[in-house]
């Protein structure tokens, strides 16, 4: 009464597509469902079929995990707020004549390349249909933290003179830094 081949097949179907802890949790729930049906008097095959049906199709369950994953949701939040933060920084850099700031060309190129990479990685994570792809959000988060820290540090270190869009851009970046760092810390812990 411990298990059934239908349950093993179900778990075998979701195991490559979800984290090991999640699969253990699903295995416990599925086995518990199966045992409840057995205790209610169903034979092993009927109990296993009922348990699997109650659980929902493997694709449905994996899709629900992906849709509700912290990586995908965080990537979506960052993608939706990104243009606004970007606009604040564009206004700050334009008003502060950033092209005159004493920043080496290599740093400028690296910053632009990081920005493009972060946007691409966030887009991939935000539209993820597999668990593996939601993990790209952590990589994008690291890049975004580096970008925000660089921009704020540049303003502090170079003291380009006050321009009003800074009032929006710096707090926006600090808030995003805190939000992204929190996500990264939770992702590392889980």
């Amino acid at each position: 009464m411990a298990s059934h081949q239908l349950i093993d097949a179900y778990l075998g179907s979701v195991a490559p597509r979800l984290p090991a802890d999640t699969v253990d949790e699903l295995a416990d729930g599925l086995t518990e469902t199966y045992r409840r049906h057995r205790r209610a008097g169903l034979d092993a095959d009927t109990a296993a079929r009922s348990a699997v049906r109650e659980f929902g199709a493997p694709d449905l369950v994996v899709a629900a995990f992906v849709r509700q994953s912290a990586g995908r949701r965080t990537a979506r939040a960052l993608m939706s707020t990104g243009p606004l933060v970007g606009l604040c920084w564009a206004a700050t850099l334009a008003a502060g004549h950033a092209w005159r700031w004493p920043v080496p060309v290599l740093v400028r190129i690296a910053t632009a390349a990081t920005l493009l990479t972060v946007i691409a990685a966030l887009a991939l994570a935000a539209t993820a249909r597999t668990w593996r792809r939601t993990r790209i959000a952590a990589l994008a988060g690291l890049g975004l933290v580096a970008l925000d820290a660089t921009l704020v540090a540049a303003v502090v270190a170079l003291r380009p003179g006050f321009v009003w869009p800074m009032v929006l851009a710096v707090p926006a970046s600090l808030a995003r830094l805190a939000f992204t760092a929190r996500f990264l810390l939770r992702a590392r812990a889980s």
Partner: protein
Amino acid sequence: MRSDAQALKGHLDVLLLATLEDGPRHGYAVKEALREGSGGRFDLPTGTVYPALHRLADAGLIAGTWSVTDGRRRRSYRLTAAGKRKLAGERANWREFAAAVTTLLEGVPWPATS
């Protein structure tokens, strides 16, 4: 019933929190509490309850702890302080909302405003 599942969408989080009010439960027990507590109306696919629980854990509203039962690893969830506050707030909001809808649907006169 499909319409019940649709209606549940906006309220699933608070209902899941409510199932943990009396103490920790594992995922399957949460699903069963939801089904039994609703007289069978909210009978979700069990596998889709787990992602919702993970989302609530990510939000800090519930916390999971692992144990071993019958040789299987089992994660049980309990309400956090933030989860208890959220549940209390949502319950108060629901009571106000339900009272207003009942007033409208049952034709009770609106209270005088002056």
